[in-house]
């Protein structure tokens, strides 16, 4: 672990133990602190023991919950993936990928 990560992770580690900070809230807080996406993913994975796929899911949910904290997690993920497929379909229609 590099020095920069260590400093960030220790700060969040204490927030988790003192305030019970959830993975979602940690991700949003780190974004507000202008910590880049990869570092936020590493932080989630390290401190909450998540796989890369699980950390990515937290990133999607936390962003949506920052807009509407009552939205159902399954609904968020369904909408996200349906949007993603529509996006990919439109893109592949016009680009010869």
């Amino acid at each position, binding site marked *: 672990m590099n020095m920069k990560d260590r400093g960030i992770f220790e700060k969040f580690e204490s927030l988790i133990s003192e305030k019970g900070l959830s993975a979602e809230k940690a991700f949003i807080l780190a974004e507000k602190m202008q910590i880049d*996406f990869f570092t936020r993913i*590493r932080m989630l994975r390290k401190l909450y023991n998540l*796989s890369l*796929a699980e*950390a*990515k899911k937290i990133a999607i949910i936390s962003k949506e919950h920052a807009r509407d904290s009552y939205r159902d997690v399954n609904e968020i993920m369904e909408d996200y*993936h349906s*949007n*993603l*497929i529509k996006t990919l379909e439109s893109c592949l229609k016009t680009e010869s990928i």
Partner: protein
Amino acid sequence: MSRNQADFRSLIKYLNAKKILDFLKEFGTETTGNIVEDFYSGNIIQYQKTINSADITGYIKLEKQRLISSIVSIDSQSPNDGVIILRRFYKKSKELCKIAKVSELELIGIAVINREVELFLQRNGFISGEMLIPDELGNDGKATCYSKIIKV
């Protein structure tokens, strides 16, 4: 080699490095440190780009005759913005291949988390495989990715 020839070569090298640097900046990378050297050394270069409501994040990596252009996360409030940012990503990836003088572009989607998306990618010629998760994403083994190699 004459002094003029050496100067000319240095100038070409400088201009090419400048071109790559400007292009990486446009791609959405942080152009701090020795990013051009990192790029040519085959290190992972993280990018992040936002256009309207759409965000795209991933990394690029130069490997011999291939540019690996990966997407770790794409998020958009409207499919339209998503299409704009995805098209741009593809266009810029191809352009970067030309600037870096490589003939292949490998598009990769990392840790795809939905079965329908996986099936969609498979139908469109993307091949699934296990890849080592880079240190930058918390290396701890492998993750399923979908990739497609395109001749540029």
